[in-house]
């Protein structure tokens, strides 16, 4: 029988994968992908908790997380396009222009 712990372990694994992506990648677009993975891991945990405690609050928070992710992508891609027009690259290390 699949319990709540199974879902939480899968969510933790997905969150760790997303975190590894955020730490490891230097490509800004990949950083956005890794952020999406982390948000989805949180959504899985919310939905599973909501099911096993017979409470709808978890699903509500998952909805709001999806709304936040959508607006984050809209703003973030706009900023990425501006950055790409300005610098011609998506490398995270090229952003370090304020070194003293």
């Amino acid at each position, binding site marked *: 029988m699949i319990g709540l712990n199974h879902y939480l372990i899968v969510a933790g694994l997905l969150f760790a994968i997303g975190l590894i992506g955020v730490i*490891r*990648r230097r490509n800004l677009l990949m950083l956005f992908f890794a952020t999406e993975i982390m948000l989805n891991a949180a959504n899985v945990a919310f939905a599973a908790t909501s099911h096993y405690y017979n409470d*709808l609050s978890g699903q509500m928070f998952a909805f709001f997380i999806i709304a936040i992710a959508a607006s984050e992508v809209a*703003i973030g891609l706009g900023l*990425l396009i501006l950055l790409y027009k300005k610098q011609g690259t998506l490398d995270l290390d090229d952003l370090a222009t304020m070194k003293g």
Partner: protein
Amino acid sequence: MFEQIAFYLFSFLTIGLFLVTVFSNNILYAMTSLAAGMVLIAGFFFLNGADFLGVVQIIVYVGAVMALYAFGMMFFNVTKVVKEKNTSNLLVLFLGVSIALLMVIMFLSPIVPEAIFASVPPEPNATNPEAVGMVLFSKYLVPFEVSAVMLLIAMIGGIILAGKKMDQSLTKIEDEIISEKDVK
């Protein structure tokens, strides 16, 4: 039985696809596997009886967000691989797993399982979309409206950020003019 088969299938496939997303050097592969993983995450939601959430996941993530990424990728030169100065993989693995574990312990340890009670139990005779609608438009009405305003702000912000100089096509003008513009 079927629940177990579905759970393990979904979890192995999602973890594999997201690993491809994180470790692939080709952005196209990463985006495709991310979209496939999102569909399988919707499978988790259906398993948990959150039908409406699963449909929203497919529509918003796989439809809107992935289409937005695909449009955004057309602005970038994706065939050119970004040379990444990688830090040590073992260190990154250790850091990622330990930070994730730390966050789980930080946020979950104060919550004793007996202290969790259902504050918003679903209506007994309603299907999942009906119950979600009842709760969303009664208890969570204010956050719902605020998130609507947030989406509007994000839309206007996206248009203003990305829409500058959209009347000039970057592909039709010569490279020198682009570099002159960059200097300005």
